[in-house]
């Protein structure tokens, strides 16, 4: 699946998107945040306060307990500040 990052999540990780292949034990968005956090310092920095991170699966908002099965694109970003 593809992971995409925006705003300071993107800046901290240092990339806009990447292909990821989490293990089967990673079933929810929250699990995925935990798994990404273990991939290196830049991820640990981006996800240091997981509660503030928002996520979207295939371009629709989801909560951290949403299952990731079947997702093609998962996005992580800070709270929105448009408008």
């Amino acid at each position, binding site marked *: 699946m593809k992971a*995409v990052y*925006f*705003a*300071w999540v993107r800046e901290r990780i240092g990339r806009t998107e990447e292909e990821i292949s989490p293990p089967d034990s990673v079933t929810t968005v929250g699990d995925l945040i935990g798994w990404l956090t273990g991939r290196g310092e830049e991820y640990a920095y981006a996800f240091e306060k997981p509660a503030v991170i928002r996520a*979207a699966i295939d*371009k*629709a*908002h989801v909560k951290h307990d949403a299952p990731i099965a079947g997702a093609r694109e998962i*996005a992580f*970003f*800070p*709270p*929105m*500040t*448009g*408008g």
Partner: protein
Amino acid sequence: MSARISIQAEDFDTGAEVVALTSGRKDVGACVTFTGLCRDEGETLAALELEHYPGMAEEEIARVVAQAQTRWPLLGVRVIHRYGKIAPGGNIVLVVTTSSHRRAAFESAEFLMDYLKTRAPFWKKEHRVDGLARDWVSAKDDDDRALERWEK
């Protein structure tokens, strides 16, 4: 009901959008516009830079517009949200609603803005006049609270 949504770098013209939603029709009794502009925050802000999530921005705004349509008898909705660098005094966002009656036009425009602020995937970064800190704007608790009134 006509609904048009644009996510664009280009500026927009509030007056032209009012004309587009009202001219040649005889059923529109009320047209409300909201234009959001970039403030210089007491001359400290040099520019805002707006990042967005292409594709999701359009889809999410379409979902919010669809919700508004189920709540109010709207004749037309127009939403434009800009991205990229915007200088103080520049336009950021536009919402236009038309209805037979004023209450529906007012409430739906305010509803759309409250939801855009907290659900549309846009993020603002401040470029400051002093050239030092370039900071992402923090989300406001106020904006989350603004949603509560629509969730009764």
